[in-house]
């Protein structure tokens, strides 16, 4: 305990003999499945602890876990981005936050906590959106880990990192490690932009969000969810006009709950509760600490292996289902040749030549591998339909009724843009 006696005297010391006893067993020698390029010993430790710069996107359920794991693994220059503030419902799993932190920035509180607990680690928080940052910003990192709950943000960072790849500059390829959880289930994956399958390649693996037809909501409600949708989609704007529904405002949720409960009573439908109301309007995904711990650990383990080359890394998808025993499936998700982000080709679509522009737009909204909300369409020569600004929308609106085949020739190209789409989607049209 000689070392302990010395260190006890200087409590602020950020280094002590034996600190990396566990991790160094891996970094000092190779294993049977280690690549020959691994530089065991001081060189790899120096890179990990002094040179490697890593970005964590999200400081929530996964983010808190990721930050702690990275810090203990020996990453010392960590950046974290999160636009959210802490809510009481985060405290059952986001373990760097306490009751007193409710309302504060997740990124800032998490960064401070890590720096207090793990000496010598620098965590630089940014309280804002990933879209605020440009390519120069993302270029500074060696690795990026995402712990996000938003499909839109994931698509944005994925497309940004794919676009950044410059074949003349190997440093421009930033490995992206992405994790996600829902209840007892989760997944972790490694994306090497342009090399492996990217986030966009696998978009069709996502569960389709439940959408209730408006006529069911308005006329033939059967489920408590239909009554809640009626309250939020139809009654709220009718009663409150331009006042925006704030799903974080308990008074707004209470109003919806009461309106939905009254409608349910009228139609003799059972099961409208405050909790269900909140779940439906906020699209709440159940979340627990343990699943987040597993997935975050898997993400950080891959980051550690990539940063140190101490062992082979995941190729490229790990899926976990913990509802019935412990089941997991590790596989290589294949790159899509016609991926609109990393495929480099336009997406071929087959369309009936009688279809109107409006029908085509409906089809695009429906498609699970595209996932676009309000698409605008154009060809290299002309505007077909634009959602905004209003004068352009007005000018192009008559085209909605026209046949698409009258506007675009067979084999012609249509460019799709949307605010939710972080890239321009190029379609090649074939008529039947």
């Amino acid at each position, binding site marked *: 305990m000689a070392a302990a006696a010395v260190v006890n005297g200087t409590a602020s010391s950020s280094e002590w003999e034996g600190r990396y006893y566990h991790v160094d067993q891996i970094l000092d020698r190779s294993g049977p499945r280690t690549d020959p390029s691994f530089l065991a010993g001081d060189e790899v430790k120096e890179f990990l602890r002094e040179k490697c710069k890593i970005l964590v996107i999200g400081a929530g359920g996964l983010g808190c876990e990721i930050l702690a794991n990275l810090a203990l*693994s020996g990453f010392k220059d960590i950046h974290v981005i999160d636009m959210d503030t802490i809510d009481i419902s985060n405290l059952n799993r986001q373990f760097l936050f306490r009751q007193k932190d409710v309302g504060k920035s997740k990124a800032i509180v998490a960064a401070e906590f890590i720096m207090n607990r*793990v000496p010598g680690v620098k965590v630089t928080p940014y309280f804002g959106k990933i879209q605020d940052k440009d390519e120069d910003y993302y270029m500074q990192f060696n690795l990026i880990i995402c712990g996000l709950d938003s499909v839109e943000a994931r698509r944005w960072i994925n497309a940004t990192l794919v676009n950044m790849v410059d074949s003349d500059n190997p440093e421009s390829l930033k490995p992206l490690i992405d994790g996600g959880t829902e209840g007892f289930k989760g997944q972790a994956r490694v994306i090497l932009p342009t090399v492996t399958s990217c986030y966009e390649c696998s978009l069709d693996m996502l569960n389709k969000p439940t959408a209730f037809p408006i006529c069911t909501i308005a006329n033939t409600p059967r489920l408590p969810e239909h009554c809640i949708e009626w309250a939020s989609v139809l009654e709220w704007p009718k009663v409150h006009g331009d006042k925006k529904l704030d799903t974080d405002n308990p008074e707004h949720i209470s109003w919806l709950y009461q309106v939905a409960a009254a409608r349910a009573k009228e139609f003799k*439908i059972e099961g409208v509760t405050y909790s269900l109301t909140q779940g439906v309007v906020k699209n*709440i995904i159940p979340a627990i600490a*343990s699943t987040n711990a597993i997935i975050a650990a*898997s993400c*950080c383990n891959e980051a550690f292996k990539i940063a140190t080359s101490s062992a082979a890394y995941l190729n490229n998808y790990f899926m976990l289902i913990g509802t019935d025993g412990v089941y997991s499936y590790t596989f290589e998700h294949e790159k899509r040749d016609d991926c609109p982000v990393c495929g480099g080709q336009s997406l071929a679509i087959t369309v009936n030549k009688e279809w109107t522009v409006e029908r085509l737009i409906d089809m695009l909204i429906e498609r699970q591998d595209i996932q676009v909300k309000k698409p605008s369409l154009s060809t290299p020569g002309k505007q077909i339909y634009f959602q905004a600004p209003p004068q352009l929308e007005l000018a192009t609106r008559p085209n909605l009724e026209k046949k698409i085949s009258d506007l675009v020739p067979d084999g012609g190209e249509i460019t799709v843009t949307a605010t939710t789409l972080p890239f321009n989607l190029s379609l090649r049209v074939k008529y039947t």
Partner: protein
Amino acid sequence: MSTSESQDIEEATATIAPGQPDDKTRRYDRQLRIWAASGQAALEASRILVLSSSATSTSILKNLVLPGIGHFSILDSTLTTPADAGNNFFLNASQSIGKPRAQEAVPLLRELNESVQGEAVIQDVKELLSTDQGKDWLRSFSIIIAHNLNNDVLAPLSTLLWANPNGPPLISVRSAGFLAEFHIQYHEHSVSQSHSENAPSLRITRPFPALLEWARSLDLQNMDPTDHSHIPMVVILVRALDEWRKSHDGSLPKTAAEKKEFKNSILAMKIKLDEENFEEAEAQAWRVWSEPAVPSDIQALFSLPPLPTSPQHNSTFHALLQSLSAFVSDPSGPGTLPISATLPDMKSDTKNYVRLQNLYRAHAEVEKTKFKEIFAAKYPEIAKTTNPDEVDSFVKNAHHIRVLRGKQWGALDRDREAIVNSLTSQPRETATHLALSALSNLLSRNAEVTIDALNAEVLSTVGQDVDLPEELEAAVGEIARAPTADLPNTAAFLGGLVAQEAIKVITEQYVPLNGYCVVDLIDSWTGVIN
């Protein structure tokens, strides 16, 4: 904030915003949507013992304290080393060095959740195992979790807990570098709320009287066209099948041709092209092909021989199970499992859907009453003391109940035939398990951990004449590389997996692991050896 002040605020907000949940419900909202209030109550009543305060142990505890277990104890007699201070998030870095490790960890774990109690017990488990008082104390917990406890201590602990069927389950966790495994020891674990994603039978081939009556009463040709397009698919299927049976000697559509014909008979009922309810009925026609009176896995439970070591708290479950068997074979009953009151959504209007839902609910209530009568007659003493909620939950989930029977920790290694079979069927899992067991044997003897020593240890378990898979070399080599490394990421991964299984055992919801779960974080896989 004082109590009166917080009450004032609650009262005030209650009048502004009715229905709003209290602080506790808000805090636990995201998990209550998974295991509900009953699961939460079970967690809050639990007392958990963790042996050691290693990085893995504190990671496991973190994921149990956050969701709100009742109480935890850490049993650990060691002092914090510089290595502990470097890999464990629940120690005060270098300031904890030289101080009792458990005592340093407890406050940092407790601050995660004010409603959880926790204590550090600075003692060695070997001492506790040597006295009656110590043994009683060990047996008093809801569940015991041990990390990297060497086989020479783990063996007597597992034997002590196995000897008493009512004692706590034991989760033993072992890890070295990127490799790990854990085992859950229990005699028997029963689950009524397995949260299966398979929908229970709608009993279309055995319609209850009110449903059949509705289906038969419909004047499909002459009814109002709007009403016609709102007949729920369940009613359409019952009607179509009733007519089919009349012309087919009472039998179901069997061959591909018959199935096609049956589907066509549904579509022929349409009076307009776009009647979605009939299209839905056609798409759901598979429900008619095979609808066993009792699913085969439930049938198998009826003939499950009783276990002399079934834990006492399972006796109610077994009484319910036998009552279920009696319900199915009762000549005056439906000859099936009790019908479920939950109906999936289907194309319809409010009036028809709610009517159908009420029919199912009313009939489910009738069959539940019948079930309760059988239960009370068969097991009068147990029925009197059983919580009615437990009976309701059992009946509601009758289609998805599960009974798991486990083995003692280490039993696999003593069963040479099972090990050899497992090496063939699951080479990577079994090889990794054997390498980790070998490591523990060497550490128990304070022997040097080398590739040769590990291989020799494996051979002494499986026998000299067994073909060993190439996966063994990968596992043994990796363990020799990092025999005592408790890596932060491996610790966090196990922290999640083990806590998850502990939660499933404690809440008796979802289905826990049976046997060993083996983890390889190089190739990033997990696997199970039963």
